[in-house]
């Protein structure tokens, strides 16, 4: 589904990624773990197409296309979804308005007609149940005044609605209490299928107790230094980053 080859990237003059190779196939769940400053979040921003990062080397092929040539909105329309570590607050824009605009943009890109209001409400209600969110969230401004947990659930709600092919979850577990973590994990698991893939980016092993990855990669100083199966995360838990990196 996605093939990352020798990816190098910088913010301003400062190199952050120094040659990343990663292949993710449909149906797989991958986890990227690493200490603070290792470049985890940079990788997620680059996949999503954030304008502040410059790719200085390497390539990303996604479903046969050169991903790096697409602007962020077209990547999203092609099925790439980023659940943000810190979702931005957009005062004045209601959640439902954003969701509908996003869904319709995707439908237009697929050559489908825009969804009518009635069908949309039916659809969104089903998705709300999945993340156990109240309907009143729809009418509040996007993330404005949401608690940390509400923001993260809202991200998963958007993911549920947009049904991405590749979902990147950036530190989705941070700031969640155990109940909210379970809800989020259940939501993600129920959205996972053989046709899509999930890339988890996380600092701690905690999330991986609920969403079991097929592959775990350890990122350090802009490079993947070790890959393995789910047991690598457990090893990491006991030895710590320092123990693995040296």
């Amino acid at each position, binding site marked *: 589904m996605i093939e990352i080859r020798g990816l190098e990237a910088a913010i301003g003059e400062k190199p952050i990624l120094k040659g990343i190779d990663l292949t993710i196939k449909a149906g797989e769940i991958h986890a990227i773990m690493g200490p603070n400053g290792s470049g985890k979040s940079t990788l997620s921003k680059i996949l*999503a*197409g*954030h*304008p502040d990062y410059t790719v200085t080397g390497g390539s990303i092929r996604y479903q046969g296309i050169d991903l790096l040539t697409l*602007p*962020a*909105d077209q*990547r*999203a*329309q092609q099925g*790439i*979804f*980023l659940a*943000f570590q810190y*979702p*931005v607050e*957009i*005062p*004045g*824009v209601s959640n439902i*308005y*954003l969701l509908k*605009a*996003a869904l319709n*943009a*995707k439908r237009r*890109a697929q050559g489908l007609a825009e969804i009518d209001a009635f069908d949309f409400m039916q659809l969104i209600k089903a998705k709300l149940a999945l993340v156990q969110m109240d309907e009143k969230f729809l009418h509040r*401004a996007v993330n404005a005044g949401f608690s940390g947990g509400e923001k993260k659930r809202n991200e998963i709600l*958007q993911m549920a609605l*947009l049904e991405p092919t590749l979902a990147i979850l950036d530190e989705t577990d941070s700031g969640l209490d155990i109940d909210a973590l379970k809800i989020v994990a259940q939501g993600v698991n129920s959205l996972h299928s053989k046709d899509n893939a999930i890339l988890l980016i996380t600092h701690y092993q905690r999330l991986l107790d609920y969403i079991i990855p097929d592959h775990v990669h350890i990122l350090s100083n802009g490079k993947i230094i070790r890959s393995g199966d789910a047991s690598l995360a457990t090893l990491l838990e006991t030895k710590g980053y320092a123990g693995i990196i040296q």
Partner: protein
Amino acid sequence: MKSNTADSFSYYRHLLTETALPGQEAAWLASLRQREFDRFLQNGFPSRKQEDWKYTSTAALANTAFEINLQTQPLDKNRYEKTNPFIRLEYHTMVFVNGIFNKTLSHLDNLPKGVVLKEIIQAILSNEISSEAQFENNAHRGKPSCHGFSTLNIALMQSGFYLAVPENCTIEKPIHVMYIACDTPYEAHLHNHIVMEKGSHAHLIEHYIGLDKMSYFNNVISDIFLKEEALLNHCKITAESEDAFHIATTRTTQGRSSTFKSYSFASGGKLIRSDTHTLLKEKESEALLQGVFIAKNQQHIDHHTYIEHASEHTRSREWYKGIAHDKGRGVFNGRVRVEKGAIGTSAEQRSNNLLLSREAEIDTKPELEIFNDDVRCAHGATVGYLDEEALFYCATRGIPLKEARFLLTFAFVKEVVDTLENPHLRSILMYIMQSVLEDQIQC
């Protein structure tokens, strides 16, 4: 012609002496007009050398020489009905066409008992305003709202409305006053006089709207008197024609525990200068001033506010949002003054501005003048482009840049519109703002 030259003075002298201005039967008015005109001759129009006019030049008015209408102006009923967005809601409606009251189009039948709403000259002739002392908003004498345009307004006043709401009366439905410009260029000096007696409540919409592409000039004063515990919800919509000049001053004098809620939405006109000045004269009075302006093409939109805290435990909150696009220029000057004895004052002021094009300009100046220590005052101002992170967020949700820009710009405005209490007014304003923005935010 209307620069500060002998020419423009003689032009106005001609208007004053040769035009059969109405209401001259009231001797006090005739003499007041003359004195105001003399004052105008002395001071002329404000110039950019004056701090209050630093960012706004009225020189463009110089090449105009409009006539003042004295006769009723025609407006087709169908056309009027299409123009009035509240037509089905049957608000208490006064319609002025090209500066002249149009009784046929107005709807004033269902006013509560004791409420007077009529053309101002009629109110003077029937002695509802019977003296200069009653007419003048004396508390604002010598303050920044007294300038060339306001003196000229009184000298040449030809129309406007008078609203008096008796004690403890609540008018449920809003009063909607429409000043419609159409067909032929004109110049109007409109004077509105609003008296809210003790404990009365009203909702007033002052609505300026231009139907045809033409140049004209509306020079407006709205004098508002709020007695003890009165509440006025005042919404001014300025949607003049693209080539119109609009200079307006709303000045309020507030009694004890009164509340003044002011909203100003300005999107249409070549040059708009809209001042809202309120004097919190007696204790525990409160003012809320909010506004939105969208300056596009070559528009120049200038909002000045002046809030004077003159008594104890008075409160004010202010929030203005501005957008400048194309070659538009938006100006906001918010001044809060807290007098020596005004202890326990709280004042808050926010000015947020979006600058959307390379040719546009925003000038903002939030000012605090504080003369005692028992206060809590704060202000904040921002100028910038749309939030890049929010744009990226929208993009990662698949929303194209153009659409995301519109979405965020619209949301920026909506935050202020959302604070309006009347849902109909909210949706009408959203509609107006949306059409102005859709038209423009195509970058």
